[in-house]
């Protein structure tokens, strides 16, 4: 079992319920897309998995190890195994692309070694190979903030690859990109998922994207899983249920498909 959530709940300090009794098993190599309305708890779920958020109750296991009860170097070792991709890329803007990718390697070295600032040759090779995989090796020595949004997101994917992670979590990875770049970045994620067998969990709010890339769709509503099935099972009726209303045009990336939906409803 790659990832397992057992009776996971999260209540924020202000009383807001983020997650309610989530039970979930994700196998190696799956490409899971999580859909749901804004505020449904998609980010909370994703960020609980690598413990950027501490859950209130329940247990989360990664490769059979509880991240919920881990701390110190054991927690860091589990996190090292999980790459994370953010909507806003979260790169270190003032430094080079290569340094950004290398920062994915810090979990493999002692604090002292990273303080001295030099990564071993092998790490540089790993970083360059990662950049090659997302087709931007030629940008290695350019400052990260000089890249386009799509390129920056690919750098952050390369950072996750440099981690040699077996899991990638992506929280709305394409929400700040244009439709064309969106496809390219999603294609990159899919290719990595298939070629390296990296378990991938992506939060998306475009339904057509979810259907195109997912091997499994999970629907969240008010912190609860209301749907969990294959793409074929996620019909418009099911999605309407997840969203609590008919699916709207702006939930599609491709506007030509919007017509079809209008026709259906």
């Amino acid at each position, binding site marked *: 079992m790659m990832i397992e959530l057992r009776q996971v709940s999260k209540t924020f300090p202000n009383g807001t319920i983020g997650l309610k009794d989530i039970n979930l098993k994700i196998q190696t190599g799956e490409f899971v897309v999580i859909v749901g309305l804004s505020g449904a708890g998609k980010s909370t779920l994703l960020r609980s998995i690598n413990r950027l958020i501490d859950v209130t109750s329940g247990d989360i296991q990664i490769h059979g190890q509880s991240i919920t009860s881990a701390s110190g170097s054991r927690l*860091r070792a589990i996190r090292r*195994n999980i790459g994370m991709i953010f909507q806003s890329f979260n790169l270190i803007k003032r*430094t080079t692309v290569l340094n950004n990718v290398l920062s994915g390697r810090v979990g493999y070295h002692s604090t002292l070694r990273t303080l001295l600032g030099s990564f071993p040759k092998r790490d540089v090779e790993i970083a360059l190979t990662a950049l090659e995989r997302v087709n931007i090796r030629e940008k290695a020595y350019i400052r990260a903030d000089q890249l386009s949004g799509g390129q920056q997101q690919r750098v952050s994917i390369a950072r996750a690859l440099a981690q040699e992670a077996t899991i990638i979590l992506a929280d709305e990875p394409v929400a700040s990109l244009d439709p064309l770049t969106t496809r390219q970045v999603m294609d990159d994620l899919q290719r990595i998922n298939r070629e390296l067998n990296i378990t991938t969990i992506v939060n998306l709010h475009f339904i057509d994207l979810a259907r195109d890339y997912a091997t499994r769709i999970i629907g969240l509503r008010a912190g609860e899983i209301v749907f969990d099935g294959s793409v074929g099972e996620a019909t418009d009726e099911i999605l309407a249920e997840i969203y609590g209303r008919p699916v709207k045009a702006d939930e599609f990336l491709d506007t030509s498909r919007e017509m079809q939906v209008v026709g259906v409803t």
Partner: protein
Amino acid sequence: MRLDIKSTNPTSTPSIPSSPNDSISNALDKPRRGKRIATWMLFIVILVVCSLYIDVTPYQLFVGLPEMGVLLKEMFPPDWSYLPTIWAPTLQTIKIAVAGTILGAIPAIPAALFSANNITPFKSVSLPIRTLLNLVRTVPDLLFAAVFVAVFGIGPFAGMLALLFFSFGIIAKLTYETVEAIDPGPLEAMTAVGATRIQLIVFGVIPQALPAFISYLLYTFEINIRAATVLGFVGAGGIGLLLNQSLGLFRYDRAATIIILTLAVVLIIDNASTRIRRKLL
């Protein structure tokens, strides 16, 4: 302020003369103007009372002005033959400022990191350090210098130490405010890759805060070079000692040489520093 503009703008009001906005702004307008006049009156009264109390009056300026003319006349022409003598003390002044600024900036880094709430979420650590920083900043540099002269004796070491404390206070404060305002995204990303706290600082905080830190360091250096020129008045080394002597011996021509040289040094350093700072930000 926006309400004021609305009420005086004729085009927006005629159609709805009894607009609630209008009555509110009129109602606010009168007490506000009254308040402003009262504030100014109070200010003037305080100014007059204080200056009378401590004998600061325009009369003194009037009497003193001719003296100023006499002084200026004595200062010119400056005694250029004095230049070789003051060269070394001027260099010492610069050295005091450089050493004080840099040695103060070094401990300012951990102090800033331990004060910043986003890096050190423990109030039990950040609060005492912030309090210390606030205390350090209440002490004027000359007072520091006087104290250190008393402890370590006359000489540049006391001056350097004074500037060290002074720089530490300013740089640490400005830096921790910058650190608290950095983009939390990269920090989150570093946490997610499994970085230790120090790795997070090296990769997430330093690249973001370094340009501002260097800018504060240069800015503090600009202040310190000025402060260093008068440290000598309390015996803390530098050119101030000679300036004090020249003034005491009524050698205003020599004092003029010192002042002109100091002015030149300050101008050059300010200029260079401002240029570098502009490039950084």
